[in-house]
């Protein structure tokens, strides 16, 4: 099955053996706040507007942001946002915070283009703007903290799947919706990487399941019923779809026969990993992501992180690399397994 979702951006599959592609030096392409006051060392007010509030993932990033703010001591941070992942509402929230007069805005965009005008407005108001998790157009913010590059995620997921179901196994994907930018990019990269490095694997199909527990479970169950023994593995593309797929496999009595690999938070996956139904879960640590984003924002406000920098100090995370001109890489995606999953609580 050819993946037609997402955008028309080019894919950039990593090398099969993992040798890092030579970093192409790219000039800084982020924006600049106009007439930003000197904030160096001064207390600042920061608002974090994730895609939506009230889900576990952004709860975790929000925690990281709060941790960093506490550690820094001179930041007053709060998280606020729409109750559904809706571009319109997210824009209104940011707009309101621009009006209320904050010093910094952290965001995770529901849509990279739709959010750009309001972010530019923030920059124009002298506000420091840093994104994380989901990017906007580069010139609408100063920096973007990239949890893991799309092609890196694609490689990690597909490699793990190939390891479990073999080079000629067939798999299906359960995602939220075809229009969710991150998921769409990941799937694109997965498709490209799989074609390049695991050409014999068979991609059966991709189904949508919103961010809905029971729907994800039903869709995954239907996939199992439809393909029977042909289905060797399921990718869950969201932190909702992955545990629900694992549950579907468990309840169908297919543990060990159908592999589940996906992006998910450790807490939701513990029952399945502990029972050996799921061997590996790929994710970065969202608490770290929030933490890094906050550190980057502080560094930007202080003037320590400027255009052209190649790295930034991010508190306990140490030195983080600048890539792609104006992005800061959190690190390679992390793979949780039975051995280490107990150590995480988010």
């Amino acid at each position, binding site marked *: 099955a050819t993946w037609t979702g997402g955008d028309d951006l080019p894919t950039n599959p990593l090398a099969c053996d993992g040798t890092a592609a030579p970093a192409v030096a790219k000039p800084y392409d982020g924006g600049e706040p106009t007439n930003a006051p000197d904030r160096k060392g001064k207390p600042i007010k920061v608002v974090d507007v994730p895609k939506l*509030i009230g*889900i576990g993932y952004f*709860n975790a990033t929000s925690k990281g942001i709060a941790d960093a703010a506490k550690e820094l001591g001179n930041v007053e941070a709060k998280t606020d946002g729409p109750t559904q992942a809706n571009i319109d509402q997210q824009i209104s929230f940011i707009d309101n915070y621009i009006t209320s007069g904050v010093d910094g805005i952290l965001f995770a965009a529901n849509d990279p283009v739709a959010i750009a005008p309001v972010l530019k407005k923030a920059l124009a108001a002298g506000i420091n703007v840093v994104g994380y998790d989901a990017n906007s157009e580069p010139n609408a913010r100063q920096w973007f903290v990239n949890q893991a590059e799309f092609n890196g995620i694609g490689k990690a997921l597909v490699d793990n799947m190939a390891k479990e179901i073999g080079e000629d196994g067939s798999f299906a994907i359960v995602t939220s919706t*075809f229009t969710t930018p991150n998921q769409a990019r990941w799937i694109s990269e997965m498709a490209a990487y799989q074609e390049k490095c695991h050409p014999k694997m068979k991609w059966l199909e991709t189904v949508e399941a919103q961010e809905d*527990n029971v729907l994800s479970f039903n869709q995954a*169950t*239907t996939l199992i019923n439809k393909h029977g023994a042909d289905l060797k593995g399921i990718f869950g593309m969201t932190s909702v779809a992955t545990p629900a797929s694992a*549950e579907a496999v468990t309840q169908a009595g297919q543990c060990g026969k159908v592999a589940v690999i996906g992006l998910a938070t450790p*807490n939701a996956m513990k*029952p399945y990993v502990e029972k050996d139904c799921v061997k590996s879960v790929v994710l970065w640590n969202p608490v770290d992501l929030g933490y890094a984003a906050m550190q980057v924002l502080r560094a930007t406000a202080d003037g320590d992180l400027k255009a052209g920098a190649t790295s930034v100090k991010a508190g306990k995370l140490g030195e983080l690399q600048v890539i792609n001109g104006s992005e800061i890489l959190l690190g390679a995606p992390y793979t949780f397994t039975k051995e280490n999953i107990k150590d995480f609580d988010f």
Partner: protein
Amino acid sequence: MSASLSTAPRAAPAMRPWKRIAAYGQEFILLGAILALCIVVGIVNPRFLGANNLTNIFAGNAYIAVAAIGMSLVIISGHIDVAVGSLIGVLATVSGLLAVNGYPIWLAWLAPIVIGVIVNAGVGSLVAYLRIPSIVVTLGMLSILKGGLISITSGAWITNLPENYLIAQFRLFGIPSPVWFMVILTALVALWMRYSAFGRTIYAIGGNVEAARVAGIRVERSTVLVFAIHGAFAGIAAVLFATQLQVIQSTVPPNLELTVITASVVGGVSILGGTGTVIGSTLAAILFAAIASSLIFLNVSAYWLRSVQGLLILITVLADMARRRRLR
């Protein structure tokens, strides 16, 4: 012959069989649609009719069917509840939190039902005694419950649920418990609606409130009761929802209220009140699960999935309208 028509008119003393069937027409249309779907998809891909998949179709939307029972009562009584999705989200979270925090399992099962009854009795009181249209009250409740849930839990996952709490995963004679809940509750409520005085009262209130009042029916009290019963079903649905997986995400399931209302109205419950049965809404919930499943089996591109669903709903409704016209 022409003369005899005038005084021994069209209607015979006893209901004619076809009229009896037509009176349950929507149920037959839905049943037909489910069977047709099964046959067509079964021919294309016999695995569709495999025991596992049929189980999934029946169990998949069982909690929606259970919630739709309560919703049907509310709609038959002439009201509506657009907050049911949020309520189920809240109740599922409450249930899960009780279960992981060491409270007895039975309490984790019972509490959502009791809280559902209390909350919706409150809603019903606003509707009945303060005469606020139910859509207004529940539109407000939708915001309140959803916002409140987020404020309190931030959507954290609830994990480490005790094994014996997961009632939706129990099976009896190989059939998952949600199916039992759905079938038994539907049958009980259908009988109750047909034979109990209160059941008929609900139809009467929905049909003509003023007439019900002068017929000596305590309209206000009955309205509160209908909402309370609906709350109980929302509570049961919430428990089934919460225990389907081994983890609970403490959020409001997206668009759940629309799905539940759609099941009720596609099931033949008149949005104007006064008519319909709960059998129809349960069949509609099963039909939705069957549609979702068959679209995957038929390899319908997920891009067109929703339009196909919308179209199928429209066709069912139009078929119902055509039937009603013939009945007249």
